[in-house]
C-alpha cells in the first residue's frame, strides 16, 4: 500500500490512447468521405453529360428552343426562369424572413412566445414541397387571379405584366417559393443577429437610442455579413427547389419577363422531362443538371464562406 500522500494520477493506458487515435482517424475518414461523395456525384453526372457538352457546347446555354423532334435543345429560358423565380422569392422571402428574425429575437415578445414562433417558422421547412405545390395550385393561384387580371388589364403595357396566364405563372410560383425559403432566411439571420453582443445593444440604449434606432443603427449593421450569408443560402435553396415549381410554373420552355406568364426552371425541366426522355435527350438533361449543380454549388459555397467570415468577426477577431 502506498502512503496517503501518494498521487492518485495515472498516465493514460495504451487502450485509451488507441481509442483516442482511432476516433480521430475515424472522424477524419468520414469527413473526407463526404468530400469524396460530392466529387463522385459531380464526376458521375459529368460523365453522362460529357457527350452532350462536347456536341452542343455553349450554344446549349444561349438557345431558347426545346424541340425533341428536331433534336434542338437550349436552356436559356430555364436558366432565366431559375434565376428569375429565385430572385423574386429572395426579394419577398428575404425581406419577410429578416423581419421575422428581428421580431423573434429583439424582445418584442415574451421569451416563450419568441421560442414558440421560432419553432413554428422552423416547422415550415418540414412541409414537403409537393404539399407546397398543391397549396399553390388550390390556394395561391386562384387567390391572386383577380389581382393579376387587374395588373394585366391596367398595366399591360409594362413588360412585367404584358402576358398573363390565369393558371400557372411566375408570380404565384415566386410567392410559394418565398415561403419555402423563409425558414432558411429566418433561422440563419436570427443566428447572425443573436451573435451581436448584448453590450453593443446596451451601448446604443445608453446613448438614448430607441429600439428601432438600436436595431437599424447597431444590430443589423453588426450582423450584416451574417444576414447577407443567410440571403445567399436562401438563394441556393430557391435555385434547387424542384417539385413546387414543376407544379406551379407551367413548364413552358419560353423566355419571358412577364410576372404573370408561365415559365420553367432547370430543376422543373429535369423532373418533368426525364421520365419520358429518350437516350439522346437524357444526355442533354444531364448537361442541364450539371449547369444547375454548378450554380447551386457556387452559391452555397459563397454563402457558407460569408457566414464563416462573419462568425469569426463576431468572435472578436480584429479586422
Amino acid at each position: 500500500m502506498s502512503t496517503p500522500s501518494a498521487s492518485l494520477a495515472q498516465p493514460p493506458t495504451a487502450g485509451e490512447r488507441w481509442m483516442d487515435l482511432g476516433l480521430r482517424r475515424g472522424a477524419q475518414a468520414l469527413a473526407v468521405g463526404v468530400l469524396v461523395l460530392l466529387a463522385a456525384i459531380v464526376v458521375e453526372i459529368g460523365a453522362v453529360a460529357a457527350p452532350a457538352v462536347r456536341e452542343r457546347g455553349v450554344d446549349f446555354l444561349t438557345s431558347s428552343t426545346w424541340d425533341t423532334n428536331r433534336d434542338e435543345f437550349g436552356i436559356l429560358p430555364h436558366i432565366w426562369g431559375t434565376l428569375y423565380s429565385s430572385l423574386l422569392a429572395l426579394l419577398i422571402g428575404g425581406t419577410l424572413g429578416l423581419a421575422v428574425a428581428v421580431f423573434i429575437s429583439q424582445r418584442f415578445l415574451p421569451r416563450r412566445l419568441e421560442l414558440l414562433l421560432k419553432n413554428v417558422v422552423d416547422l415550415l421547412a418540414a412541409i414537403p414541397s409537393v404539399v407546397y405545390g398543391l397549396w399553390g395550385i388550390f390556394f395561391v393561384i386562384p387567390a391572386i387571379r383577380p389581382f393579376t387580371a387587374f395588373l394585366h388589364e391596367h398595366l399591360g403595357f409594362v413588360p412585367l405584366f404584358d402576358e398573363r396566364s390565369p393558371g400557372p405563372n411566375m408570380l404565384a410560383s415566386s410567392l410559394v417559393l418565398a415561403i419555402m425559403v423563409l425558414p432558411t432566411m429566418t433561422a440563419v439571420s436570427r443566428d447572425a443577429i443573436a451573435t451581436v453582443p448584448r453590450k453593443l445593444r446596451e451601448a446604443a440604449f445608453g446613448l438614448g437610442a430607441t429600439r428601432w434606432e438600436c436595431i437599424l443603427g447597431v444590430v443589423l449593421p453588426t450582423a450584416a455579413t451574417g444576414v447577407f450569408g443567410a440571403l445567399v443560402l436562401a438563394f441556393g435553396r430557391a435555385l434547387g427547389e424542384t417539385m413546387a415549381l414543376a407544379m406551379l410554373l407551367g413548364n413552358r420552355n419560353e423566355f419571358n419577363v412577364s410576372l404573370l406568364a408561365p415559365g420553367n426552371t432547370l430543376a422543373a425541366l429535369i423532373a418533368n422531362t426525364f421520365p419520358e426522355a429518350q437516350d439522346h435527350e437524357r444526355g442533354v438533361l444531364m448537361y442541364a443538371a450539371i449547369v444547375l449543380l454548378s450554380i447551386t454549388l457556387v452559391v452555397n459555397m459563397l454563402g457558407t464562406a460569408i457566414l464563416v467570415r462573419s462568425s469569426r468577426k463576431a468572435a472578436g477577431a480584429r479586422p
Partner: protein
Amino acid sequence: MTATEPTSAAAVAEDLVIDLKLDKLWYGKFFAVRDTHVPVTRGTVTAFIGPSGCGKSTALRCLNRMNDLVDGFRFDGSVHFQSRDIYHPTIDPVAVRRYIGMVFQQPNPFATTVFKNVAFGLRLNRFRGDYEERVEHALRRAALWDEVKDKLHSSGLALSGGQQQRLCIARAIATEPEVLLMDEPCSALDPIATRRIEELMTELKERYTIVVVTHNLQQAQRVADMTGFMYVDTTQGGRTGYLVEHRPTAELFADPRAEETRQYIRGEFS
C-alpha cells in the same frame, strides 16, 4: 427658476444635479436594494464602492433608466434630475438617456469606424452642424485624438482596450450630456490605461458631473469627491444592498463611521 431667486433652497437645488432616493427596489421577486439616498452636486465625482452584489451598479443604472430594460424591475422612491422626476409617467426613458451619458464596464465600441462611433449620438439627436469639429472635440476631451487622428476611418475595434474605453467616453460626451455615469469603467483595463481614465475623469468633472461605480478603493480615493459605501444585508434571508454611508471621500476613508465601512476599507472582507 431664475438665477436671481434669493432663497438658499433654490441655490442648493441648482447645485443639486441628481437626487437619488431608492427606498425599496426589486427585480421581480428579488429585493435588491433598500434605503439608498444619494444627492449628487454639479461638477463633482461621486463614487459608489462596496462588495459584489451590494447594488451599486443597480443604483447607478437607476440614474439613466437603464434598469427599465430589465424584466421585473420596479422601485419605491424617486430619482430627480435637475429637479425633474425622471420616472414620472410622462417622461420618456429614451430622452433621459440622451441627457445622461453612460460608459460601461466592458469597452463596447460599435463595429464601425472611430468617427462613426463618436458621431452615433450626434446622429441620434439629429445634430445639424459640423460633425468633424464635434468629433474632434470629443476625441480631444477624451484624450484620444492624438492617437487616432490618422485612423478616424478605420475600425474602432482595432484599437487597444484602453483606447476603446476612451473612444466610448468620447462617444458618450460628444452630445454634451450633463451627467456621465461610469459603471466600473476600468475593470477590463491594465493599470496604465486605468490611470489614463482616472486622469480623464478629473479633467472631465470641470464640465460634467460624474457618478462612477468602482471595485477599486484607491481609484475612489484618487478621483471621487464624495463616496458612497454600499453593503449587503443578509439578515432578512435575502441579499439586499443598502447604503451604509455617503460622505466626502477623505472623511470616509480616514474616519469611517460604520463598522462595515471600516472593515471593508481595511480589506477585512471583500
